[in-house]
């Protein structure tokens, strides 16, 4: 039966450049001298370190524990000694650091004791917790913790499980090779996911420029004989591999920004994730390696099975980087992230190390003003009007950008790709988004501060009132007591007597403590003495003397402590 495919708006067709890296099978990488494993590798909380410098770790041992449920564990990729737990430069455009575990491999690559689970007997919740602790995250690039996506929607079941083998980005072929070589295992992972999600159908979408992968997957489906799983060739058009676009193409459903796809009866996983889930559930192996495409400015583009934490240049060396290499890009040429250094580690999000050179990826021609030609709107797969969002982003009018649905932008790069004025549109959108986020953080902080300030005022008001009441009561009591006497003290008098006394006592205490602190603290040497004139120095000395005298005077040798 021929299934009806749907279309998404826009999209572009950049040259795919996929042929070279698919000529050779996936290769393994020799152990590097050092693995740097960032603890924060997924969307969500920052996992806490479970090891200390000097610890011996085994392959697959958990070294970072998930921080809450929206987080995912991290594991040692090989056996060896933990040399350090420190902030290291992470594979992120900012070049900022994140807490990482540095492991020196012992070369034995010894597995530790594996934490197995009986897939048949375990409940779905147990399976999800297991996957969280096995560190399985989405390997398409978004690295969202998979266990959170393996919950069916409100109805407890799903219409369609979409498996993403589209791989629309140019140069990247890791999913292609994975499907060609490991289709059977991948399919087992899909079965497990289907079971957890109670999905009726499984649709595997593969772009029609990968006939070998499609054939391999179809053969595996035929061999497995499980009904309801179908592999479909979809037209090659970037970004068909975007989760929302693929769901649209295969099912016709458009999942709006900010909504869960399960609410629409669909869920989407990458083929690599499916394979990792199989690896974890069947063999008990956590996610410690992934297939990475090395392409671009190298002699022999190829796919490698790379341990998480391997420095990128270690892998690139195998493929033969050319001398004019000026940067690494993590991901493809449309959405890839510029790396701050060559030795940043491969992480779970690294589907491709794209080696760049000024010839391969020349700097864009000078940016011209927008002529509102609408090419970007024609290319936008989210049906946005990028030129309007650009116009207001440039003017920093963020309210207006949101009116034009800035946050529905998936930053696929189609608009920048087609722009005849060579405007880095996506950069403007990233800028606007992060400014808006920053503003929201500030707004939240301001709201908390307002609340706390108002609460403090309320509390002070209450305290003042209570104090006044207490004083009034006391005064009344005094009045009663002296009622027999001829003269009645005015009610304020009692307060006037006690209050300054209390303050005096307190002040004295503080002064005493200050004196102690002054002695504790190494004598503060006056600064910049050599540049001050004698006059000034004399003045300073006079002031010091005065201050000292004042301090002596105030430190009453007999503090009225009894009154306090």
């Amino acid at each position, binding site marked *: 039966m021929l299934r009806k495919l749907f279309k998404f708006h826009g999209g572009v067709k950049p040259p795919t450049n996929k042929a070279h890296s698919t000529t050779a099978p996936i290769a393994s990488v020799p152990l590097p001298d050092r693995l740097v494993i960032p603890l924060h590798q997924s969307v969500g909380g920052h996992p806490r370190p479970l090891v200390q410098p000097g610890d011996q770790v085994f392959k697959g041992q958990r070294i970072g524990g998930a921080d809450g449920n929206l987080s995912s564990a991290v594991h040692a990729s090989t056996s060896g000694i933990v040399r350090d737990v420190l902030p290291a430069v992470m594979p992120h455009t900012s070049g900022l650091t994140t807490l990482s575990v540095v492991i020196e491999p012992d070369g034995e690559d010894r597995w530790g004791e594996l934490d197995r689970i009986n897939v048949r007997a375990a409940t779905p919740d147990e399976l999800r917790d297991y996957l969280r602790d096995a560190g399985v995250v989405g390997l398409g690039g978004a690295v969202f913790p998979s266990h959170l996506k393996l919950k069916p929607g409100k109805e407890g079941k799903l219409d369609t499980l979409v498996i993403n083998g589209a791989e629309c980005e140019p140069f990247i072929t890791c999913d292609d090779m994975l499907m060609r070589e490991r289709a059977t295992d991948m399919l087992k992972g899909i079965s497990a996911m289907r079971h957890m999600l109670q999905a009726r159908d499984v649709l595997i979408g593969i772009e029609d420029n990968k006939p070998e992968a499609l054939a391999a997957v179809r053969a595996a489906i035929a061999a497995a004989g499980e009904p309801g799983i179908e592999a479909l060739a979809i037209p090659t058009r970037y970004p068909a591999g975007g989760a929302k676009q693929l769901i649209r193409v295969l099912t016709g459903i458009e999942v709006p920004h900010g909504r869960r796809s399960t609410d629409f009866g669909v869920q989407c996983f990458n083929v690599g994730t499916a394979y990792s889930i199989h690896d974890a559930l069947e063999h008990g192996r956590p996610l410690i390696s992934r297939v990475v495409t090395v392409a671009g400015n190298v002699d022999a583009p190829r796919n490698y099975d790379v341990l998480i934490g391997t420095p990128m240049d270690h892998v690139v060396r195998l493929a033969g980087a050319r001398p004019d290499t000026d940067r690494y890009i993590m991901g493809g040429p449309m959405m890839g992230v510029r790396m701050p250094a060559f030795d940043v580690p491969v992480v779970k999000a690294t589907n491709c190390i794209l080696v760049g050179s000024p010839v391969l990826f020349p700097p864009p021609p000078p940016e011209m*003003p927008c002529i509102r030609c609408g090419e970007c709107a024609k290319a936008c797969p989210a049906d946005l009007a990028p030129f309007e969002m650009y*116009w*207001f982003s*440039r*003017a920093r*009018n963020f309210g*207006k950008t949101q009116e034009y649905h800035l946050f529905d932008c998936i930053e696929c790069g189609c608009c920048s790709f087609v722009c005849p004025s060579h405007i880095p549109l996506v950069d403007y959108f990233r800028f606007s988004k992060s400014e808006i986020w920053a503003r929201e953080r500030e707004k939240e902080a301001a709201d908390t501060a307002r609340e706390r300030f108002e609460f403090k005022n309320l509390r002070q008001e209450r305290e003042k009132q209570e104090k006044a009441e207490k004083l009034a009561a006391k005064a009344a009591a005094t009045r009663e007591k002296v009622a027999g006497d001829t003269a009645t003290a005015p009610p304020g008098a009692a307060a006037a007597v006690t209050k300054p006394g209390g303050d005096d006592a307190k002040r004295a205490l503080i002064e005493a403590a200050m004196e102690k602190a002054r002695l504790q603290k190494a004598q503060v040497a006056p600064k910049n003495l050599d540049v001050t004139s004698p006059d000034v120095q004399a003045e300073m000395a006079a002031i010091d003397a005065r201050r000292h005298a004042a301090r002596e005077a105030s430190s009453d040798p007999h503090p009225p402590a009894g009154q306090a």
Partner: protein
Amino acid sequence: MTSYLFVILGAVLVNNVVLVRILGLCPFMGVSKKLDTAVGMGAATTFVLTLGCGTSYLVDHYILVPAGVDYLRTLAFIVIIAAIVQVTELVIQKTSPVLHQVLGIYLPLITTNCAVLGIPLLNVALHHDLLESLLFGFGSSVGFSLVLVLFAGIRERLDGADIPAPFKGTAIAMVTAGLMSLAFMGFAGLDKYH
């Protein structure tokens, strides 16, 4: 019937109060930075002007002319309009405080908005009857609101334009108003066709 239509159309387009008669430029330049406030100002002016035209006609026709004191017309009209503006201000303050704050100095300005005085006086000069006066006032203020809103739309977009520094703000707004006025000259002669 058609003649009433021509009164309205003529007032809205052909003899647009701002772009052709060049009346009421102060709020036109002052309250056109944002679309929302322009809509508010347009609504306020429409209310005041229509009401003002009706009231001033009644006062003129039934008090001033019979009493033979039509030389007091300007004075009386000013007082009436000022009162209507005050009422409008109170209503807006009640219903939309932000609009009130935004229109702040402009609401009292409606009092001195030459369009608001000019249209009732034109009504008298053109010998309009009560209905015509109301329609003319309404048409003129709709014309005012229309160009105010359109102008605000353009100015909101100009906010992002790379305008040379000396022309930023009011200068380029004046140029824009001039070009809009030029465009409205295209309607010239339409009201003469019968």
